[in-house]
């Protein structure tokens, strides 16, 4: 009978995710950030092919040579080429930090969904535990974990992943609390859906945007945390040319005027963190439009 049923022609031709994608492509912030990150990813994957020297090869005669045409970034105290080490040094940090963030996201999302969905006593107990956990500095957790588990990349991933999980859980929880009040959750209950179905199939797809934002922001912090732990000797172990590790073994040289042994590694860390943060800003802007 009545209304002829056509989809009005003014509806958006693209889905919501396509719109986010196109808005990302128009965001200079995101594109610059992405460019920096991709540069370091390329270095991590293929760095050894275009690094002029073997990053691990020592050359005592040329130790502590200042930057020159031969060694662009100079050499360190046992004559290793700093430029090559910076290029290849992105590999470990770009493995450990994303995996740690992934772990944090998965664990945090699950925790956030449970606490936000069940509310009440479950939320109270779990949230207090998570808060207590967040109050302990990462370094102390790392120290304890390393004493217990020994130093390895896996330990670093677990330590950073689990320390960041409560932060992500808190973000997810607040998003879930808002979603839970929407009528589609009541509609699911009126179909006798299980709690797991309601959480993971009904609610989860709708809280992806804040999770995505939090994940990209956390990735920046994770890079920072890995570098810090390596610098303190709890993270990536020698002989890796890792940036944090290199700074840690060379910072004593600054006093002697050998600034190049530290500066370029520090700049590399800074640029990667800035790149990730720019990209995160772009993602946040695109999703909140």
């Amino acid at each position, binding site marked *: *009978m*009545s*209304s*002829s*049923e*056509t*989809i*009005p*022609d*003014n*509806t*958006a031709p693209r*889905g*919501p995710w396509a719109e986010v994608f196109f808005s990302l492509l128009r965001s200079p912030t995101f594109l610059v950030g992405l460019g920096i990150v991709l540069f370091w990813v390329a270095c991590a994957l293929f760095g050894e092919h275009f690094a002029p020297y073997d990053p691990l090869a020592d050359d005592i005669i040329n130790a502590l040579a200042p930057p020159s045409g031969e060694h662009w970034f100079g050499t360190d105290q046992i004559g290793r080429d700093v430029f090559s080490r910076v290029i290849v040094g992105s590999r470990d940090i770009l493995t450990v930090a994303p995996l740690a963030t992934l772990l944090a996201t998965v664990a945090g999302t699950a925790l956030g969904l449970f606490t936000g969905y069940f509310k009440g006593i479950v939320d109270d107990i779990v949230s207090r535990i998570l808060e207590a956990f967040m109050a302990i500095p990462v370094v102390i957790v790392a120290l304890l974990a390393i004493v217990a588990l020994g130093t390895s990349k896996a330990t670093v991933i677990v330590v950073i992943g689990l320390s960041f999980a409560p932060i992500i859980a808190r973000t997810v929880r607040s998003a879930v609390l808002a979603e839970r009040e*929407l*009528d*589609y959750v*009541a*509609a699911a*209950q*009126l*179909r*006798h*859906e299980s709690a797991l179905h309601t959480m993971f199939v*009904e609610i989860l*797809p*709708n809280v992806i945007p804040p999770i995505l934002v939090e994940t990209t922001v956390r990735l920046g912090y994770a890079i920072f945390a890995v570098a810090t732990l390596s610098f303190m000797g709890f993270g990536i172990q020698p002989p890796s040319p890792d940036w944090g590790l290199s700074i840690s073994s060379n910072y004593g040289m600054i006093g002697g005027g050998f600034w190049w042994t530290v500066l370029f590694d520090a700049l590399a860390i800074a640029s990667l963190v800035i790149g990730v943060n720019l990209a995160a800003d772009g993602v946040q802007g695109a999703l909140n439009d």
Partner: protein
Amino acid sequence: MTETNALELHDLSVAYRVNGRNRAVLRNLSLTIGQGEAYGLVGESGCGKSTVALTVVRYLPRNGSITGGAISLDGQDVMKLDAWALRRARADSVSMVYQDPGKALNPSLRIGRQLTEIFELGGVSGQAAEDRAIAMLNRVRISDPKSVMQRYPHQLSGGMQQRVAIAMALANDPTMLILDEPTTGLDATVEAEVLDLIAQLRQELSASILFISHNLAVVSNMCDRVGVLYAGMLVEEGPTDRVFSDPRHPYTVALLRCLPRGGQRKDHGRLDTIPGFLPGIGATIKGCAFADRCALATDRCRTELPPLYELDDGHGGIRLSRCHYHEQAQALPRATPSDVAAPARKEAPAVLRVEGLNKTYASHGHALRAVKDVSVSLRPGETLGLVGESGSGKTTFARLLLGLVPPDEGGTIELEGKTLAPRLENRSDDQIKAMQIVFQNPDSALNRSHSIRHLISRALKRLAGLKGAALQARLEELVRSVRLTDRHLAVKPRQLSGGLKQRVAIARAFAGEPRIVVCDEPTSALDVSVQAAILNLLADLQSKEDVSYIFISHDLGVVRYLSDKIAVLYLGRIMELGPSENVFSGPHHPYTEALLSAVPKLDQTETARIRLDGEIPSATNPPSGCVFHTRCPRKIGAICEEKEPALAEAEPGHTIRCHIPYAELARLQAPKQPVPA
């Protein structure tokens, strides 16, 4: 005419830039509002009403631009004003009141601060500004302005907030007042108060008014002249009473027919609807914009844009209609056949029986009785309408039935003779599928991440226990029965219009062949033409499936159309319960009387108006005796304050909770009693 007009729009065109293309929203709109005149602008959502309001003061969003025409405000060309002059014009001569007063007021400043600020901009400060603020609040009939000045917006009710917003708009004594859906979010009783206030202020002030509303009845009560907007074009204009009693454009004719009026009921016939959709913004329109939806349209309508024909308004003035066949407009055939087979009333046992249902919430250490001692029963194929202001417990009652919130100990809910567990988790699958709901807001009720196909299939799987080919077959049948097509299945809810989304929600509720469907304000977010189609659909489904409805709405015309029985709720108590016709025609409870009187009507036959003072009291601290005595216009004395009246049978099946005996109510409410002027 010697004096300048308050507002003149001449050939105004406005476009919004979307996806890199300019899309026309207003098309060559011309209208004139005289000094002191109230002009109503009506039309469905998306026709450009609010854009008009924004354009007048050049407040368009960043992607909007005026692509042609002229705006003259009090003789001043708005298009030529520089930024500073525009600011002055906005500050001094035009004021706007928006739909949502909660958003117009700053939540972190006290009312007093927000009001005095306006005077301070005008150079008045300190005590003088404060005095003027108090005077403004007095003017909008706020009884205790001093204490209101001390409060924050969230501490005021919606009606009070809107009064404050109006006071702020009037503070500078504007020459032009723009009201954009000022009562749309308010309860009927509060709406009536705000409209009364605006009508009174019109007498006191010289301001001209541009009144924008989708509600034809509101406009008909408030305005001298009305313009009907369609796809950004004026399609009809004229004196309000003429346009509504003798419309000359098929769109106006159709719009008026969509409203359930004059006690129309589902067993008398279906409502008329308007087929098709409004052209999307920026659509290229050759000929008449309404041609695609108009049964009278000829080839001429599709190719030749009708001019605004000037007609005689019968009072020596002119009225306009943009229709080639304006003299035949009222011959527009119905889009929906009205005839229905009246269902044979069966004497079946009750499908639902609710006895002594209570719900108490703990609110800051106080008991809040949201629902108190409610007993109702419902037969198959019947509709129980629940009416009452917001805060009366309608939605809580519905949630109790569905088991979404557990009731207090003691009451019982029986479905087909079997007692239901209070909590959803403890009800059987059969019991769950037997009682479903259509929520008010489909954007909240339909999961935005899932396709329509997923939404309906999931319901069929869980509620009807179907799989595979059987599920597919039933899916197609169900989709057809709510008049959607296969093409709608692949999309996500956000790609559908409000009416189509609500059809999906209805399909989902009907997936498990329910016995009872709770409809919680299912049409309140929809335009009237879409509302009519949804009400027809619900009525059709009911007569086909013999399903019972519990229908919640603040729109009494809508409730009356669909309901067999009505329960009037106030502070969680049933004040009146009975067959729909008896409750509406009366004699009725004084509260029902006030609710009915508050509804704006298109045909102003009624003279006696009853207004309720103040707001619904807090349920944490309900009044003693009869809970309605604080606002009751027919209070008889101390007994009302001391003793709660029982729900007494007035006629068989019709009960009223009032100390006034039924015969006395009948005498008091007798029609056409002489009302002193």
